């Protein structure tokens, strides 16, 4: 009885884990927060970089546009942590790797000349591409929050 319960618990924990750890998936971007009126924090959406003039965030809850030439600052940082959950449930060797969240902060001025800012969480492996696109089109250079963030900008 006890064994069966433990087994069930383990299976549930395993199945729950990816959801619990769910950060942004490929193709998605999360609006973590910022000054966009009416757009809730932690809104999942998509970032469209096809236009040469504006960066567009779209989601079922709302959208915003940032003209590249109005960008005033660009900052990249990470939130890194050990895979303790995976280590407990699946394998201790998971402690050797770190999970990272990739955070891009964009400052810009809106049509009323007011300063605005958005904080976005972007998927693993896409940071350098987004940074390159925004740097090239805005003419602003990214600032890395730490040497560690710069070193791990590719994932």
């Amino acid at each position, binding site marked *: 009885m006890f064994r069966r319960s433990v087994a069930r618990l383990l299976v549930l924990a395993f199945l729950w884990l990816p959801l619990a750890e769910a950060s942004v998936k490929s193709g998605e971007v999360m609006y973590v927060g910022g000054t966009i009126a009416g757009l809730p924090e932690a809104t999942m959406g998509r970032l469209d970089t*096809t236009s040469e003039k504006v960066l567009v965030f779209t989601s079922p809850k709302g959208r915003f546009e940032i003209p590249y030439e109005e960008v005033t600052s660009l900052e990249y940082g990470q939130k890194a942590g050990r895979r303790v959950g995976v280590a407990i449930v699946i394998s201790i060797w998971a402690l050797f790797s770190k999970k990272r969240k990739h955070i891009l902060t964009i400052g810009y001025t809106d049509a009323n000349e007011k300063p605005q800012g958005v904080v976005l969480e972007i998927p693993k492996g896409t940071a*350098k591409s987004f940074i390159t*696109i925004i740097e*090239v089109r805005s003419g602003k250079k990214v600032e890395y929050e730490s040497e560690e963030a710069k070193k791990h900008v590719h994932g």
Partner: protein
Amino acid sequence: MKRTLSALLVASFLWTPLAAAAVRGKAARYTGGTLAVFKEAVDGTWELGEKAVLFTAKKGGGKVEISYDKIESLEFGQKVGRRLWGAAVGNVLILTPITLLLLFSKKRKHFLTLTYLDEEGQKQGAVFELAKGIVKESLNTLESKSGKKMEYESDEAKKHAEKQ
């Protein structure tokens, strides 16, 4: 139930390394940037010509030619990771701790970021993942023919590029 769960676990372990397959041989991968010709990341061939570097996508036939004298900046970085999944899979399938030695080796991906002016004078930026075998030649050629200094994203990336 047990069998299904085991199969699921093994499949999920095996899928991860395949999904993150590295660029090999003399190939390169366009991973992102402002190039409208490529809608998404794409694998291709990388040729260092006399006057320009040419990247040709394997699928779709898109290509981009970057003249050395139009290059504005060069940046090199790496993604370094432990062979965690290899060790985990080995440990689960072969049931020997020897596979854990894989944890002592690192896998590296090599990234080159270029900014340059295209034929219309528009500034463009592109990030390429280069196969290990073409890193040194590419960095040397690009630096010497463009006259631009390579910027390294970390001391480790610089050390590793010089050692190759």
